[in-house]
């Protein structure tokens, strides 16, 4: 099946969707990457405030849950011109899909019309569980009083999210999946301070989810990469100065098979398009 070039970024809150889009826009403007701006977009309202914050050395703000923005950016990739549809929305919407176990027309539309999905996962925020299958022995708590009632694990939520979106799209899981193509982007990579590959990190943080993807998608129809859109947190004056002095487009990198520190963030889009 030929997949269209529509890209959907899927990510729960705080996985860095907005920051990535703002940085991507900066790179496109700079015209040094694989993808370049072809002509000025008609309206960049959606990305502008985030982009402005980064140029001021400030971190981007969470996108309100009710926001659904689409910015159309004309780009050139290998001599071919096309329009990149950057959709930004409140990450809470993604969380609601599995909390409420229902979706609305917007999400059915998103799931059906976009043939290339980029799933944003922030590995440093994935909670690690410690249970008897890891620990040799533990006393039984006879009282059962101090039982923590935290919700379901991050790992099961990501499995459920993919199942729900596939359902919204109307794509069955019986045969290995060819479309939508799936690019798993492990975001805020700098927080991990690791030399492992993105594939190794996903396996380490969410082995059952990794097995789920590999058992459901055709090999070659999915890929795993690392993303650090900001490169470091903008918490201190010194770090903020770096952004002011050297400008945001000089920070941020991707972790790819062929380059563990690729400064050209537009290659994430290229990766999604080449799956």
């Amino acid at each position, binding site marked *: 099946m030929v997949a269209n070039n529509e890209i959907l970024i899927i990510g729960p809150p705080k996985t860095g969707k907005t920051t990535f889009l703002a940085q991507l826009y900066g790179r496109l403007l700079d015209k040094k990457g694989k993808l370049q701006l072809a002509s000025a977009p008609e309206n960049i309202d959606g990305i502008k405030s985030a982009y402005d914050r980064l140029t001021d050395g400030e971190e981007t703000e969470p996108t309100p849950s*009710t926001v659904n923005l689409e910015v159309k950016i004309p780009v050139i990739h290998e001599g071919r011109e096309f329009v990149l549809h950057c959709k930004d929305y409140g990450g809470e*919407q993604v969380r*609601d899909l599995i*909390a*409420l*176990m*229902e*979706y*609305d*027309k*917007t999400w*059915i539309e998103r799931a059906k019309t976009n043939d290339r999905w980029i799933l944003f996962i922030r590995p440093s925020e994935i909670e690690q*569980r*410690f*249970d*008897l*299958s*890891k*620990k*040799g*022995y*533990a*006393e*039984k*708590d*006879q009282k*059962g009083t*101090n*039982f*923590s*009632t935290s919700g*379901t*694990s991050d*790992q*099961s939520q990501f*499995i*459920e999210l993919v*199942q*729900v979106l596939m*359902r*919204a799209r109307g794509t*069955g*899981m*019986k*045969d*290995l999946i060819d479309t939508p193509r799936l690019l798993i982007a492990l975001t805020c990579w700098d927080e991990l301070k690791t030399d492992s590959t993105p594939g190794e990190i996903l*396996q380490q943080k969410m*082995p*059952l989810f990794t*097995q*789920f993807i*590999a*058992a*459901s998608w055709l090999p070659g129809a999915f890929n795993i990469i690392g993303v650090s859109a900001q490169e470091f947190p903008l918490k201190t004056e010194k770090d903020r100065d770096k952004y002011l002095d050297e400008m945001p487009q000089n920070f941020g990198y991707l972790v790819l098979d062929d380059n563990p520190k690729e400064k050209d963030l537009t290659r994430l889009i290229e990766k999604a398009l080449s799956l």
Partner: protein
Amino acid sequence: MAKEICTKEGCYAPKDFCLELAGPLHEQCQFFAKSGATEASAKTSKKLATSIPWTGEWLRPEQLEILTHRGSPRIIGLVGSSGAGKTTYLAMLYSLLFNGRRIENWDFAGSYTLNGWELQAKTLQVQDDGTVRNPDATPSDKDFYSLYHLALRHDGYLHDILFADSSGEVFSKWANNVNDPAAENARWIYDNAHAFLFFVDCEAIIGQRGRARRDIVQVAEQVKSSLRGRPVVIVWSKADLAKNMRENIVDAIKRNLSEIFPGAISLEISNYSKSDSDQLCHINNISVAETVLNLLANPQPLRIAPASIQADDFFLLYRGSYGSK
């Protein structure tokens, strides 16, 4: 987008449990009471939202249609007395998969009962004070069904597998009287399962000695009665205690079970591990699932070898393809 109805942030009552009161009693919650107006507006926007057919909770027999449209799910019935570790086995199986162990040649390809698995796996989670929670007994109500789903890819095909759990008490009632009205769920599992995991509780054998044997044999005989060749895997649970069992009782149980289920594979499991890849905990808990799945995928045909024929006639001597085997 249908928004949450309760005014408390992150609370999805009444669709989900009330966050404030940690239970289904959202009507008594102060946050929910404040949200009278939003409830009305949520109702009007409700039409736009499509509900997903599964909730993540364990399934009941009448909900199986969410699976049957894509093939016949295979049901594995868990049989054993109360406290034999049936539910705990499921909790451990999920925990092992969760942490990266794999069932060889059976790749995890999703589940419609993730919340159900998660709920059980929590009983094995080590708390801050270093203890694990004592799991609640499975309700012995005759209407209580809990079917845990795993979609597994084997040889390129997707198989829907359901582990059917029920309380041990119901199985004991059923073993005494298969028509007991209070054992409806045990009857359903027995009639519909494609394979069985038969649990033998090592701890009960230590504590109850000969009496444990009587109960085990009674349930086993009943399982055998209309088995129709369905595979049975015998699971010796809490096998870390196995050395404390009286040898003569163990021998008697083993003899009985091998007569009742000839050729059935026995595996010893435990939740406690001594090393990183512990035989009883890490390897055998997975092996139980792997063994029963392989038996389901490759049913052993009944082999009736033709009697050897004493004759000189070549026509009668010809044994077709059997001849070379």
